[in-house]
């Protein structure tokens, strides 16, 4: 139940069924049972068109915008007005500007979507819904791609909409935001409503409801004892698929026994940086060196594997050579780069180690050795699977991720690269993975952590490097104020004022908007 003029938060873990519920509500999926009641009338939505007609709009987690279209074209799509058979772009443009002004959502109606930052794309999505005169707006994980400042702006927009009498369903798993904005909270777990709450409930109690047991929201760790540098990156420049500079002369250093966290909004070159280090992407310039570092406790990092040259360049090396040099890699998209979904858990556990003597003799694999090792890993890493022979695709996201973590941590490491290690992973598995990362660090491994969740970076990292548009703007200690990190994530280096988000907008809107935001800051 959502009342008019209310912000109703739907809180739940990844995979709890929040998005599925909302896709049913929006007509993208059909319910097997049950009914939807809008303004007292039961409704049945066969397609999103029906939902729009009933006054429901949705901003999807992955934006539903055509990248090569302009803002106006995207907004008019599906509700085109024509004049003499031809598109009436002029009137659509007027409409966009009108809504844009009314709700304080500055956009340039003539910009092409793919040239716009995600924050602005999200505004376009909201305007797209508002132009269709919706009464209920569903926002599916809207803050996942935003900087803290952009999140604040979004919350402000939500308040404006609420004041205008619109209802909002706000789907999230972030407790802080829920407490900041929601009028009422429904918590879902494994497809069921497990409770309702008010925003004055404590974060701990909300988290407990969400997960079904008490959880620790903080990661327990000792202070780091950093040793010698393990990985140094100097002047690294990498291009993305489109030939644009994605990593722009980056210098980084990861020391033994510390976690270097890379904070930044998705798509600021983190992916390309990691792929370049792993030899998965050619580099344009710069140097990547893996050192024979010693940890703070004087123990050689990587244990027995630590033999070999004191320092070696990773540039131009094959990925398998890099892995065998003592680098562990948790890729950001496990289903694409981390696992072969059709393979069994046991096979996935040796995916990058199958040719080592312990698992193979000559050209033949040793299935017994692989299976025995798999059983041991499954126990050690608490992978919940019916059997070590079950296809990994049958496991939940959290357990799939634990398979990767188990594989990468089963060899002595000098360097662990963890990209988005807990994306789409339940809270229980997240706790476990975080603890293992910290343990790896305490054994003297250097850890390079990339996460778009600032909370995760702050919780795990000993030092934080903030990436923005391919550059590292600053490297901060872990206890740096979140406000400062947030500003850096938005590309502001002196912290005096947040970037006026209207700067990308056209002349019609930017003037007044810039003024408004200046007053706030």
């Amino acid at each position, binding site marked *: 139940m959502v009342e008019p003029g209310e912000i109703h938060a739907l809180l739940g873990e990844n995979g709890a069924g929040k998005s599925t519920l909302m896709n049913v509500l929006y007509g993208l999926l059909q319910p097997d049972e049950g009914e939807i009641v809008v303004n007292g009338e039961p409704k049945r939505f066969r397609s*999103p068109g029906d939902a729009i007609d009933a006054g429901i709009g949705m901003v999807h987690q992955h934006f539903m915008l055509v990248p*090569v279209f302009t803002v106006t074209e995207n907004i008019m*799509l599906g509700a085109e007005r024509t004049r003499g058979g*031809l598109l009436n772009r002029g009137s659509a443009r007027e409409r966009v500007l009108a809504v844009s002004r009314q709700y304080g959502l500055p956009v340039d109606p003539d910009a092409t979507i793919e040239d716009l930052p995600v924050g602005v794309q999200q505004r376009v999505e909201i305007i797209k819904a508002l132009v269709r005169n919706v009464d209920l707006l569903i926002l599916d994980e809207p803050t996942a791609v935003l900087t803290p400042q952009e999140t604040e702006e979004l919350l402000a927009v939500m308040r404006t909409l609420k004041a205008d009498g619109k209802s909002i369903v706000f789907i999230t798993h972030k407790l802080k935001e829920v407490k900041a904005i929601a009028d009422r909270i429904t918590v879902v777990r494994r497809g069921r409503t497990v409770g309702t709450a008010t925003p004055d409930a404590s974060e701990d109690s909300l988290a407990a409801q969400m997960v079904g047991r008490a959880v620790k929201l903080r990661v327990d760790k000792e202070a780091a004892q950093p040793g010698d540098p393990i990985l140094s990156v100097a002047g690294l420049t990498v*291009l993305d698929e489109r*030939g644009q*500079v994605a990593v722009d002369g980056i210098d980084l250093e990861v020391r033994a026994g510390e976690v270097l966290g890379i904070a930044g909004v998705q798509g600021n070159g983190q992916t390309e940086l990691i792929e370049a280090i792993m030899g998965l992407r050619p580099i344009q310039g710069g140097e990547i060196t893996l050192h024979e570092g010693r940890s703070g406790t004087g123990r050689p990092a990587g244990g027995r594997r630590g033999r070999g040259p004191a320092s070696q360049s990773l540039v131009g090396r094959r990925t398998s050579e890099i892995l065998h040099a003592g680098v562990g890699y948790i890729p950001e998209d496990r289903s694409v780069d981390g696992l072969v979904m059709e393979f069994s858990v046991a096979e996935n556990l040796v995916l990058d180690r199958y040719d080592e003597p312990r698992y193979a003799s000559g050209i033949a694999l040793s299935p017994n050795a692989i299976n025995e090792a798999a059983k041991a890993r499954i126990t050690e890493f608490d992978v919940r699977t019916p059997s070590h022979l079950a296809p990994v695709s049958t496991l939940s996201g959290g357990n799939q991720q634990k398979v990767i973590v188990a594989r990468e941590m089963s060899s002595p490491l000098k360097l662990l690269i963890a990209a988005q290690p807990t994306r789409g992973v339940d809270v229980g598995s997240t706790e476990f993975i975080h603890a293992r990362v910290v343990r790896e660090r305490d054994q003297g491994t250097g850890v390079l952590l990339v996460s778009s969740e600032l909370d995760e970076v702050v919780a795990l990292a000993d030092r934080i490097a903030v990436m923005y548009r391919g550059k590292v703007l600053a490297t901060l200690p872990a206890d740096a104020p979140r406000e400062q990190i947030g500003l850096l994530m938005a590309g502001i280096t002196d912290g005096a004022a947040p*970037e006026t988000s209207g700067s990308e907008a056209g002349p019609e809107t930017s003037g007044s908007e810039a003024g408004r935001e200046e007053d706030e800051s």
Partner: protein
Amino acid sequence: MATLTVYSAPGAAVPTTGFWTRARKAGLAFLVIGVLAAGIFGPLARQHKSARFTFTQTITGAHVDIPAQPGAIAFGLLCAIAGAILLAWGRAARMLVLLISLALVFLVLSFLCWQVASGRNSTVLPLGDLSNSTVKAALPLVFGALGGVLCERSGVINVAIEGQLLTGAFAGALFGTIFSSSWAGLIAAALGGVFISALLAVLAIRYLVDQVVLGVVLNLFALGFTGFVFTQLMAQHQDKYNFAPVFPSWQVPGLSRIPILGPAFFQGNFFVYLAIALVVLVHVGLFQTKWGLRTRAVGEHPTAADTVGIKVYRIRYRNVLLAGVIAGIGGAYLTIGDVGNFNANQTSGRGFIALAALIFGRWSPFGATLAALLFGFSTALAQVLSVIGSPIPQEFLSMLPYVATIVAVAGLVGRVRAPAADGKPYLKG
């Protein structure tokens, strides 16, 4: 307001290819080719001979004579100069297209000076005839490529253009003869194209069959089926089943008198005018109407289209079927628009060249048409040269259109952006 240090988007302003921009690469290529042309075509051309170009469709009438050897050398050097300018300048802009076109024209002229002057049968090249043949050769390609544009802009890869053209040519001849009406043949041709399209649409959209494999299979099916009916029925009773009336030519008064281009564009039959109209219509439709906006949205991001209430499957079916209508009519040009009878494998790969024209033309109606004209020109050139008795063996001359296709697609196109969802079936949910 405090001074802000906001980093600008890297690479947003300048492309990051360094010194070797596309313009420079093309410039270097033309510089080398131009010098080679001057150095090879010049000496090869017979001395004291000249090449005569007439502006009519025959070997008499207004003409220019170009001395073969100096001509071949001069035009080769002009091509090299255009290349040098590109190389020195190195920036992509509006001038780029002009310079590349000029370089190509000079290169062709240098080649022609040698060829025409060395002809065994004649040393006269009628330009009117060349342009007429170009349009004739390009027409089926234009129809095929336009069909491809409609199909692929909505996200379905159309490798079956060849099959659609062939079925159209076949149905046009067969039913045109049976009903002894070229209009009946035209309708039958459209339905023939739709038949192949319907198979493509159902198997690709409903049953998610790989669209490239499917297209190849449909081409083979069309080849086998039309070939079978041809040998079993049409070839044995030519007068009863393979003797269709041909569309008459309509002259546009005034415009048809334009030298060189007039006869090609304004003295043809129904198909020429239909093609011109369709190019404009598809362009306007695609970029200025509700249908076009939705078509492109479905081809780029079907999920986004679905979430604003657009019926993705319906749009795709409609466009694929419409593509069949256009390609079918294009095939009919080969029979009821030209000679009136059908032959086994009459299209002989034109559908694939149309596909290349579509890609070379970057999925745009005008671009595809220009590409089709380029391929048509190389076909026409091969024909004309073999008539005047070129020193190059006939077999190599007939390779010309295909070589032009390969060079165009591999060399000049570079990386083009297809519609993002082209070839990807849409699954709901």
